């Protein structure tokens, strides 16, 4: 059993190196193999054969930002769940109560968000 940290993590570094080599080879091979002929039509953005209008650098729905924000909030919370779960058997019922209290506080935020209509993606305007 490899016990030291370098021995434990060497295979991971190795695997990352192999994965990057394969990925790099795939991106490079598409550069090297196959002939390339350019023309203006081939160079334009593909929009089902129509002539593209404007660029894609446009504004998009603010909902995406909201989802990213609430994800960060809850993901941090989930990260707290992991060490708790690992030592849970030693904590017992006390551990359950403490984590339930913590989770409960975040759940009230979740409830508020739900009622505010953050989770509704259909066309109706959000309730105030």
């Amino acid at each position, binding site marked *: 059993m490899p016990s030291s940290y370098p021995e434990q993590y060497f295979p991971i570094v190795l695997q990352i190196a192999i994965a990057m080599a394969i990925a790099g080879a795939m991106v490079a091979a598409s550069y090297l193999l196959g002939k390339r002929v350019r023309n203006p039509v081939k160079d334009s953005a593909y929009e089902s054969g129509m002539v593209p209008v404007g660029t894609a650098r446009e504004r998009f729905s603010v909902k995406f930002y909201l989802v990213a924000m609430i994800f960060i909030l809850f993901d941090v919370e989930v990260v707290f769940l992991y060490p708790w*779960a690992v030592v849970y058997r030693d904590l017992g019922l006390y551990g359950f109560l403490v984590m339930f209290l913590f989770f409960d506080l975040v759940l009230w935020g979740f409830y508020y968000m739900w009622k505010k209509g953050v989770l509704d993606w259909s066309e109706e305007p959000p309730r105030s």
Partner: protein
Amino acid sequence: MDFFVLSVLKALVVAGALMTSLAYLQWVERKVIAHIQLRLGPYRVGPHGLLQPLADVIKLATKEGIVPSHVNKPFYLLAPFLAVSLALTSIAVIPFGPEIEAFGVRTYMQLTDINIGVLFLLAISSLSVYAVTFAGWASNNKYSLLGGLRAAAQMISYELPLAIALAGPLLIAGSLSLREIVEAQQGVTLGILPRWMIFQPPAPQIFGFVIFLIAAFAETNRVPFDLPEAENELVAGFHTEYSSLKFASFFMAEYANMITMTAITTTLFLGGWLPLFPAEYGSNFVPSILFALLAAAALYHGLHPARRKDRFSLPVVALLLAAAAALFLIPIVQTFLLPLFWFLAKAGALMFLFIWVRGTMPRFRYDQLMSFAWKFMFPAAAVNLFASALLVALFAR
């Protein structure tokens, strides 16, 4: 043998096996979907289209690799690179079997067993959202941008139920090391059921398993959650502007993620390499019996051929299957082949489920997808976790 040489050898074997199974997973998927739809699927290149993956690779590699002038070049090239390298990395901590001894070397059937294995898997799988977002944004195409944004929102939304469902097995095993989690699932419960996480008292993770599986479908952008690459609304979404092997690399990443997800599910919920029932009841003979039955069936059909060429080809297949059955009876091979068989059988069954669902289900609507993630999956995963925690606190020894 030197530890570093052994590590390099193991890594090369795993990488080779992974690349082969990636290529053939594509073939299996096309075949299964074809048969669901009463078609034959790939049939021309080699017997039963078995050389089709090779032909596809050659075709894609020799295609014109365009980098359109309107793209943001660094991120455009970074995206497929990131997708593939992240998808192939997480296999490093998956355990395929117990400690074995072969040719005088003792080693684990796992590249490495780190004490934060589950966290590592989660970290790598959450990074893969960058690949899709970069691809969508850098392509400078409206459809790609929409696809990329949708994919990002979907993947982070479903990561929450996935991560919370994952905490259930951790609660019972009390470890983040994947090897220790598998070892915590040894034995029998209720007389007949294996002590896998989905059955293990006091808190069977059967609901956690279902939640994890649904979230895994969404994380890998598979049907019914394939909105980021919806052909008919987004002209393939985030990879519209990619061609040649850069296009193929996104598919490779998707299949590699599928393999990783099924392997994680097997390890955490289905007992990893452990057999369905203990060796005392003869689980060591299951693969042999299975292959022998298949050989008998092939031989029967070879003796009663439907087509002329079957008279020769099917007995050859029968011979190969019989050889496989015999191979599983050799004691020295059994030590590492049996765990591998059970692991691959479970992972393969899950993989078949992935393909089956793709052949059966329609696609979600986007608002349904998001509200399903947040209004059902997230609360359900939380309820499951706290119910399990309560059961463990009250009834665990």
